[in-house]
């Protein structure tokens, strides 16, 4: 039970199934669709990724994505993009406070966004050093990967929140 089953390029063949989803052949068993779940989504994005079947039973763990050939890595990225969505904030245009809420307008790697967060420490979380996770009123999440790397104007705007 406590043993970790590692999926390696040798024993685990990943493929794209007929419907475009990620499949796996492992130990002579074919799984038509598998899910990838990161064990450390913030601290080690590409390490220890659990591979699970439709019923969410763990088939095994990928220790590091980079152990697999590039075309397989591409499949992984596709699947991970279906499971994880976290726009990265690259620039902050404005933060306006309004009745216990703050309205943000930012640039992300997916384009310009406007969102509102409720002023509550749980919506502005320091997960690891210099990284901030922001959760808006709808439950959407945004990440500032490293606030020390923001431009000066942007940093000034969040300085008081840190």
């Amino acid at each position, binding site marked *: 039970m406590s043993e970790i089953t590692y999926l390696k390029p040798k024993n685990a063949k990943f493929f794209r199934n007929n419907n475009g989803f990620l499949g796996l052949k492992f130990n002579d068993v074919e799984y038509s669709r598998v899910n990838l779940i990161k064990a450390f*989504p913030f601290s080690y994005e590409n390490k220890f990724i659990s591979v699970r079947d439709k019923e969410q039973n763990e088939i095994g763990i990928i220790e590091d994505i980079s152990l697999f050939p590039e075309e397989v890595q591409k499949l992984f990225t596709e699947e991970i993009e*279906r*499971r994880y969505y976290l726009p990265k904030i690259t620039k902050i245009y404005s933060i306006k*406070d309004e009745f216990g809420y703050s309205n943000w307008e930012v640039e992300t790697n*997916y384009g310009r966004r406007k969102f*509102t967060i409720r002023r509550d420490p749980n919506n502005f979380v320091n997960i690891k050093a210099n990284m901030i996770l922001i959760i808006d009123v*709808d*439950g*959407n999440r945004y990440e500032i990967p490293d606030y020390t790397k923001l431009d000066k104007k942007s940093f000034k705007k969040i300085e*008081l929140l840190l």
Partner: protein
Amino acid sequence: MKLLYKLPQDIETRIKEDGEQILCATPYDLEIQQPVNGFFVVTRSYFYIFKNKELIRKEKITRYKEYHHVLAVGFGHLEASNDEEETLLISFSMRHVNRYQSIATILNSIVENHVPKIVSDDEENNCPKCGRPYRFGSRVCRHCLNKKVVFKRLYTIIKPYLLPLFLSLFLMWSITGINLVTPTLHRILVNDYLTPKNKNLTAILLIIGGIGLCSLANTVINVIKNRLMIKVSASITYDLRQTVYTKIQSLSISYIENRKTGELMNRITGDTNRVQHFISNEISIGITQLLTLVVVTILLLVLNWKMALFILIPVPFIILYFRFMNQTFRSMYHSQWRISDRANSLLHDILSGIRVVKAFGMEEKEVSRFSKISKTLSDVTANNEKRYNTIFPFLNYLMGIGSFFILYYGGSLILKEKLQLGDLIQFTQYSQLIYGPLGWLTFFPRSFTNALTATERIFEILEEEPKVKNLAPETNLPIEGNVKVDHVTFGYRPYDPVLKDINLEVKPGEMIGLVGHSGAGKSTMINLIMRLYDVDEGKILIDNRDIKEINQKDLRSQMGVVLQETFLFAGTIYQNIVYARPNATLEEVIKAAKIANAHDFIMKLPDAYDTRIGEKGVRLSGGEKQRIAIARAILNNPKILILDEATASVDTETEYIIQEALGRLIKDRTTFAIAHRLSTLRNATKLIVLDKGKVIEYGTHDELLKKQGKYYQLVMAQKELTKTRE
């Protein structure tokens, strides 16, 4: 929650070309990770996906067997599948998650050939007009508030207090009047009598006396006004709270369960306070301040318009500066509050986990963690205080700067004998009167909006109609205990039925055991029999009367309930037992406790029945609480008894004692019992096995065992479990 959005014209015409009727039309905003603008449209037989107004997919709904709402991390997808295919239809951000949950259910019910009900009870989190999020726990948008309507409402609250409010307003105006008179007296004193030319000591004394009298009158009126206002505010608060609280108690459980306890408490205490404060303070003060401002400005201009300009010109700047500083200070103190909050929760965390800290020998690490945050807090606090104490004195200085100019200008006029010393003094005193109202006015819009929103929130509750209506008059007719469930269908959300077409007939004195997996609908069934909710279809009859036609008080007074989570109120054991029937005799109370097997353990407590329980009293074990709850239920001598997992949270031995008590309790009563331990239900007259909202088996324990169906499986599984545990 909105499931039918207004579609752009092109899309609508495109669907009309197919002759289809639109059931749902909802926006989606992602294509896997890329932002897009799209619409997902459901009709009776098709679904359509539009991306930027262009049709990219149209499919027969029945092409797929099942539609899934997939919640990923940070967003969600709508997927569809049949035996061979699986496909991702659309993706959406968290804003639409609940919407597509409903859409998936609707699509699935179309597949199953049901006619779906397109209603969604989930509430929107954003204002439908402007899209801004609602404030926490409220459905009132501060931007789209109809001020006229709210004013009318505010007026209905104020109406009973108009007289004292006018009186206080009058008193305040007299204070203002007196304040305006005093500088004039000063002027007369200085100009006419403080000169060697006119040696009239009596007149001086008279004027000083006048000034003194003004000051005394000022004080006395102030005291009277304050005492009056305190009385008025207290009764406004009392009345408002009473109204809101009574209303909340009368509302159906569905309304209350949909809201957090803290939210309702905030309505009863916070919002009422805000409205009270506004009525008793802001309105009268506001009118007075405004009046003072206008009168003083006119007076200054009339007295000497040139000197008045010295005072009035800096005013806009001062207001702007005030507002700016206000914002800065707010965010400054906000961050200080955040850090202090963090330090406190860290402290709380460590102290409550102190055993773990010590067990792992981590004391030093924890000390340094706390000292780090303490240091930050002390730095930030010191910094803020320094800034505050630097800025404010200078602000005061700036506000007074106009008076230097006046002194200079006025002084030069005096030298030219164009102005008398007394006039200058009067002028300076008036100019001091202008700053108070100014400072106050800068904060007024904020407290005004606060009060309007609070009013609106209070009315949100006051205007809510209870969903379960109590229309029948009270009759005190006794109930025999005949219960008939007739083709009942019910769901907490209308499109998602939890119980489907349930039929059941129970005679007085019978015990019905409800069996099934969690989520099968057992508790829902009980909620319906208690009429905490009204059925969607069908009827529930008690003694051949529809329960909707029985007065709720009549109904509940003849029902006894023992729940898994026993709730006892803070108070004595005695008070808790007589909760539902305060006029019970002591003999009845002890008898009830004996039937509940509670008497003996109660008598072992030093204060026996007068033992205080609850937060500040003796802690009782789960089994003991349960037995008190049973005594409470039985004291009412209910004809219908409801036991919802009454023995789930106690150990086997206690369960035996409770079982014994329950055995006595159910005699001659119609009983509905839910229990996970199936052995508990052995004595039931009939057992109902529920699965996914339907009755799948019905019969006695022995009949169902013979049948070897679902009940048999459940019994066997539990036997296995007990074996492995032993």
